[in-house]
């Protein structure tokens, strides 16, 4: 995807010098391997700051919410679907945006690579068509790229942006997958007590830092339910019930809106697979309403509207 860099810079330079946009939001190259920093550029001479590689997993739609200027924004498939969600939910206007679409090959999963290195520290990471080559002091390790993609990228079926003003490259072929929800179904097959124990275990390290919530473009409420004090819905300590309540409601607020961009999971400093919750809801929304969020600009999400044919099997 490195060949995208030049194209992104060219487009950004053109947009800024022709005064088509006020700013361009993209990524800057990271200061450590497998990271990148969201960046905003407002002068044509600064566009060389922009970068693109396999580590741009944060969702840039997060930086668009309620902005009033004209923005050029770099968007992968999942980001573009969030832009659609934002437009549907009146957080930004389509006219303000010039979407620089990026057909995506999937982002690599930093946390799993670091775990696989088991304490060895990578100092350089190069990604080619099939492999991720990691080098560090006294070692070189190779990982199969497909296997070490972020889990949401491995099961992604919308790699190409769904809305864009310009693409930086030809569209990529979409993945054909047998079962995108295998991990969810595995949990569903457990008994209630097993499920309870399973989630207790994965949520145990949670610090309540709210990186998952804040990295998510859907979480733009002025006051989040965890910050409400009258009534206060849940305690603020790391008591397991409070942690679970937080994760439950965070995920639930994304039901029917989540595009599975994986920013939440990527942002987590303690590697909690928080997507297991949102993914379950995605699966249910797909099953019950045949809906995929962020695909069409003028359709409200299903839990936002009433239709007489809404499924009601759960009602006595």
């Amino acid at each position, binding site marked *: 995807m490195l060949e995208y860099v030049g194209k992104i810079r060219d487009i950004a330079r053109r947009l800024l010098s022709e005064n088509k946009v006020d700013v361009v939001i993209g990524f800057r190259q990271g200061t450590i391997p497998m990271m990148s920093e969201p960046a905003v550029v407002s002068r044509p001479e600064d566009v060389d700051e922009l970068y693109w590689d396999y580590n741009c997993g944060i969702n840039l739609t997060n930086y668009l919410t309620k902005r009033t200027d004209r923005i050029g924004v770099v968007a992968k498939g999942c980001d573009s679907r969030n832009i659609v969600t934002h437009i549907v939910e009146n957080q930004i206007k389509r006219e303000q945006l010039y979407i620089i679409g990026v057909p995506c090959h999937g982002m690599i999963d930093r946390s799993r690579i670091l775990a696989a290195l088991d304490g060895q520290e990578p100092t350089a990471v190069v990604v080619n068509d099939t492999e991720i080559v990691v080098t560090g002091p006294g070692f070189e390790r190779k990982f199969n790229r497909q296997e070490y993609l972020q889990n949401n990228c491995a099961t992604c079926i919308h790699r190409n942006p769904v809305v864009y003003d310009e693409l930086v490259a030809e569209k990529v072929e979409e993945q054909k997958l047998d079962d995108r929800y295998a991990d969810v179904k595995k949990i569903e097959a457990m008994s209630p007590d097993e499920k309870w124990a399973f989630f207790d275990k994965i949520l145990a390290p949670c610090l309540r830092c709210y990186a998952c919530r804040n990295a998510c473009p859907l979480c733009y409420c002025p006051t989040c*339910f965890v910050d409400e004090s009258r*009534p206060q*819905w*849940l305690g603020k300590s790391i008591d397991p*019930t409070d942690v679970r*309540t937080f994760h*439950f*409601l965070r995920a*639930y607020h994304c039901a029917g809106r989540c595009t599975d961009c994986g920013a939440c999971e990527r942002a987590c400093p303690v590697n909690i697979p928080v997507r297991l919750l949102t993914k379950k809801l995605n699966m249910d929304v797909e099953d019950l309403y045949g809906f995929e969020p962020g695909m069409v600009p003028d359709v409200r999400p299903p839990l936002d509207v009433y239709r007489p044919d809404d499924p009601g099997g759960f009602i006595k």
Partner: protein
Amino acid sequence: MSEWEPKITAFLCNWCSYGAADLAGIGRMQHTPAHRVIRVPCSGRISPKFILAAFRRGVDGIWVSG
């Protein structure tokens, strides 16, 4: 010791189920005493937060009825 009875929070819509409960009362119909009724202006007012709040306070079951 008497048999264990569950505690159930029942969120009942003022206009539908609460009315039905009222009618059941007028008709002197016998039913379980397990429910603790919370009358809501509309069952659409129920937020997932309410349900979790009830569970967190230790109820054994929740019944939302429109």
